[in-house]
């Protein structure tokens, strides 16, 4: 028998439990909102930590978790930005990067990640190519950053990229203005030094190499220990050789440097990477002659040549494709008139455009073929045949047309924009063997016994007089006039002479490394 007192107590206890449960559930309902934010922040930092260590797989997991599971937190946009950075800067997957960027701009348009998202959108536009439509899209995105977020620290970055884009579009004054705004308004930003690099390149394009050298020297004066200072030194050295020393002396001087083994034979190519590594390809393989510590060469068994990808990294040209230093190989197959495709097996030359497309010259094919980054056939770039080709920063392509006895320059679509006859008024290149562009766009041509450098820009007179003002871009088809900057050749008995150069590389400082078949060695000219 339950007495009344016990019943009352029981009821009291029960109601207390119910009230506590209700209170707990209310508190529990409130807790996730606060807890989510903290968890999301911690997971974002976890992802960043993994990324710093190079463990991108785990980093991506954390970023995805934040973006997907904690989409309402204040750091979801940051996670998407990290995802976009990974895809664009680490693995160059522009499609995934675009998805992440678009997610930021649609879901978090006023977040603190939005300015950098616009910068990335601009860069993604550039990665599609340097056609006018791509450049305009890029500029529009960069412009949005300082229009919509004038106080954001992404503004100097956007101005820097805008400047580079204007340069690609050959709007040199706009490029200089953009770079100038970075250094004027953001003199201590991380983009300031690179702005001077950009301005230097523009000034060369305007035919003012000496002013360009002064501009580049500012980097060394203000940021002497920066990576940009090292780049500036290389570029100043290059310009000094062509436009100061080369005015009154031979631009190239043979050095006593010895690279590679003596009695070198069967050399098929030389290449210089943007990091300054020099590589030699023989029929037996690819060997670094002078490379940064830890640098690897593509493991091509029987290379037929060397090329640089759009990132300036070494690529081995093999008979049927290209192979990177990391071992990634891309094979190419071209469609046949009879239907179907046939793998290419006699590739002689290759070069990668800024959007990742490959230009491939196969000896069995009629002309220069274009393939996508992954090897998918695109089209015939041009019907020309060439043993060598080179691509510059604005996707102009130079080839050696032996039949036409010219160096022909094409734009990114395959249209001819310029020609350099083998013989000119002040030069003679009877046997051009190789081609290379430097970082400014000067074209170096290796003849068997000479090196000639041509410039698509106005060349200052020997007196150093200022060249005429740059004309506004003309309407109609684009043409580029290359003029000789300097030619180097040495008398036969001169130790600096070479007689049967078959391959060369031009490093970032404009030094030339050539292989003389007769001397059977690599000769270095600085």
């Amino acid at each position, binding site marked *: 028998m339950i007495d009344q007192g016990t019943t009352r107590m029981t009821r009291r206890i029960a109601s207390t439990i119910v009230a506590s449960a209700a209170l707990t559930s209310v508190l529990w309902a409130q807790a996730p909102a606060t807890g989510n934010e903290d968890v999301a922040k911690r997971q974002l930092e976890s992802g960043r930590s993994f990324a710093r260590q190079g463990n991108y797989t785990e980093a991506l997991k954390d970023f995805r978790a934040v973006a997907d599971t904690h989409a309402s937190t204040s750091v979801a946009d940051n996670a998407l930005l990290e995802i976009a950075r990974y895809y664009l800067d680490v693995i160059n997957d522009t499609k995934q990067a675009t998805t992440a960027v678009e997610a930021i701009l649609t879901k978090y348009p006023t977040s603190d990640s939005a300015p950098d998202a616009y910068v990335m959108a601009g860069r993604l536009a550039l990665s599609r190519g340097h056609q006018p439509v791509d450049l305009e899209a890029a500029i529009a995105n960069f412009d949005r950053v300082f229009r919509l977020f004038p*106080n954001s620290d992404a503004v100097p970055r956007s101005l820097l990229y805008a400047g580079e884009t204007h340069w690609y579009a050959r709007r040199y004054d706009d490029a*200089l203005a953009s770079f*100038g705004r970075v250094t004027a308004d953001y003199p201590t930003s991380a983009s300031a030094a690179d702005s001077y690099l950009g301005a230097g390149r523009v000034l060369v394009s305007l035919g003012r190499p000496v002013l360009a050298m002064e501009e580049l*020297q500012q980097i060394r004066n203000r940021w002497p220990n920066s990576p940009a200072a090292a780049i500036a030194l290389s570029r*100043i050295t290059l310009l*000094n050789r062509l436009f100061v020393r080369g005015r009154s002396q031979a631009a190239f001087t043979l050095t006593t440097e010895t690279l590679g083994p003596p009695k070198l034979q069967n050399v098929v190519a030389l290449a210089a990477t943007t990091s300054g590594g020099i590589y030699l390809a023989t029929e037996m393989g690819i060997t670094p002659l002078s490379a940064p510590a830890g640098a690897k060469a593509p493991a091509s068994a029987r290379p037929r040549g060397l090329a640089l990808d759009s990132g300036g990294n070494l690529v081995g040209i093999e008979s049927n494709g290209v192979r990177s230093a990391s071992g990634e190989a891309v094979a190419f197959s071209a469609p046949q008139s009879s239907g179907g495709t046939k793998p290419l097996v006699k590739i002689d030359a290759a070069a990668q455009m800024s959007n990742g497309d490959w230009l491939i010259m196969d000896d069995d094919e009629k002309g220069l073929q274009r393939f996508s980054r992954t090897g998918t056939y695109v089209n015939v770039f041009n019907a020309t045949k060439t043993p060598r080709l080179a691509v510059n920063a604005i996707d102009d392509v130079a080839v050696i047309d032996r039949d036409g006895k010219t160096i022909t320059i094409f734009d990114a679509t395959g249209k001819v924009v310029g020609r350099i006859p083998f013989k000119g008024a002040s030069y003679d290149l009877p046997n051009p063997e190789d081609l290379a562009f430097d970082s400014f766009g000067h074209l170096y041509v290796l003849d068997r016994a000479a090196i000639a450098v041509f410039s698509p820009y106005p060349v200052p007179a020997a007196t150093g007089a200022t060249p005429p003002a740059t004309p506004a871009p003309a309407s109609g088809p684009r043409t580029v006039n290359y003029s000789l900057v300097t030619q180097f050749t040495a008398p036969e008995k001169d130790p600096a002479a070479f007689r049967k150069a078959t391959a060369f590389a031009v490093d970032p400082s404009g030094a030339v490394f050539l292989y003389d078949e007769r001397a059977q060695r690599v000769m270095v000219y600085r």
Partner: protein
Amino acid sequence: MIVKARRLLSLALVSAIAAGAATRLVARSAPSAQSGPQAGTLDLLFDQGKRLFDAFQYEEAAQLFDRLINAMAVTGQTQRPDLLVQAYEMRARSRFSLGDSAAAERDFSALLAIKPDFRLAAGVSPRVVAVFEGVRKITVGQIALSMNPPGDLQIDGRAYTASPTPNMVDMTAGDHQVSVLRPGFRPVTQKVTVTAGAVSPLALTLERVSANLEVVSIPEGVEVLLDGKSLGTTPKGTDANGVSAPLMLSDLPLGAHKLELKRDCYVGIERTITLAAADLRTEPLRLTPSTALVSIQSSQPTAAVFVDGAARGQAPTDVTVCAGSHLIEVRGAKGRFIDRRDWKTGDNATLTADLRSAFPIVVTKASTDAPAPQLRTNVERALAPAKRVMVYAPADAELQAALRDETVPSDWLVAPASETGASVAGLPREVTRELGRRLATKLGAQGVAAISAGPEPYSVRIALLAAGSAEPDVITINTADPASQARAAELLGGALPPIMRPSIETAVVDVAGTPGAVVVRAGGAGAKAGLTPGDTIVAAGGRPVASVADLRARIAAIATAPSDLALDVKNLSGVTRKVTVTVAMLADTIPMRDPSVLYNRALLDLSEAIASAPNAAAGSAARLNLAIVDMRLGNWDDALNALKDVQLPDGPGVSAGTIAYLVGLCQEATGRTAEAQASFAKAAAATQSRLWSDGPLVAPLAQAKGRR
């Protein structure tokens, strides 16, 4: 019979007259019947009695003296013992004359009880004297009284003085109570029995139980401490030499004590004194003044000097201060110095007050975690090491006086700007400028500061607004992070970028593999010295040059220009020659948006630089840079006015094109579009001009402006 009758009649008559007189006197003078006869009445009675006595009317006299004695007894008028004694004497003599010797003896006995040492005056009847002496012999004895140390004592409540030498004191026979009460001695209470006709010795020796100490000092007003306890200050004396009056310290325990004398601005004295069984008086203890002489110099002449808030003239000045800690403040038109210094006695110090631009805190936006006073203290302490700027909290009264009649928003200057660039709750620029100027003037400062607690713990936003500026510089510090504080102090105190640089007007570059600085453009002084493109400078001033940095360092070390600099130069052929180049001092400009520059401080520094420019070129450079700072702070008209007076030649670096571009910016900002276009066009034509010596080219910037 008739004589007796006549005598009785006279007695009655006299008695009546005396009674009547006494009554009238009593009635006239006494406020009530109960208070008894007044003193004057008693004297009258005595006089009457004396006249009756002298008139041989002894009976009447006796009666009168009866009444007098009774009246004094009734009313307790024992304040007149002398009168009572006389009354007793006269009654006794009257009674003796009436043949009542017994009564006379009783009166003499009563008299001696009052005054044991009474003696009859000469001329009194020998028979009376004999009676008196007879009574005295059986009534009075003597005490041979001596006391060591001498002093006062009381016997039966009556004061006596005793010395170590016995002194005879008449005392009635019987027991008497002796008491001695003197500071520093054990109290004495004892009984002495006096035998009539005999001498009773009473030799008292006082026992010292404590001491008295009298302290005398020079000067007066000195605090006296005994064994650490303050016991007073020495009073002012009358001595013209400044000797104080003695300070009596009573009832001090015997033994050794530490005596200290202290007074501000004097060196304290410390002594050990031993108090023995004797009072002690110190000789005048002289304190030596404890002062220091400080010579106060100032970086700004005629700055006012304050010591502990009191004005002490203008710098340079010598001030004498007490040894110890003092707050020194020097206020000049262009800055302020505040510091607390400690000086020791005899110091002869020089204090050079480097005046710093003063920014008093006028707005404090506190938080619950950081109340306003704590916030201000933290900021003052954090920024104290800054060399050129002083941020401080003014006295509350001073601040309130300055803010009276002003409307200052609670977050003035420290409201955070939004991402879109619009400041939150800000005042219009002109209002900010004028308000800042007024407040700075009222507070005698060079600008004002505002602080607000930041979102992070211990973080503080500090806004500095110079007088005349419309836009503050804002820095954020963490007051708990020494590194953050050090950075802020460095930012506040760092020197401005140079506004003039020595230059050889020649462009040089580094070339890989070529030790030295390679000439790419020879201009001005370099061209005059014969430098040509391609030359490599391998030594300067006799020291090797391995790079452009080396050459820049050699040139930067030249303090005055023009100066000659010897160069070793190698041409393209490798041939070396020596040239001498005349280094010129050229104007340079500070960037308009450099986060390492505090533009509000620069406004003050450059205004001063203009005023103190040693030559026209330096003044011109200062004006040019002041214009840039004005532009940065939104003072476009001021900038334009300053630029009008700056002339630079055409050429590379900071030159005419630079001025044209800056003028264009000012004109653009003030709506003078057409003039701006013309200026930009001029700047666009100056293809080598730069915004600052290693800054961007102005031509492209001007062209972009022109296109817009």
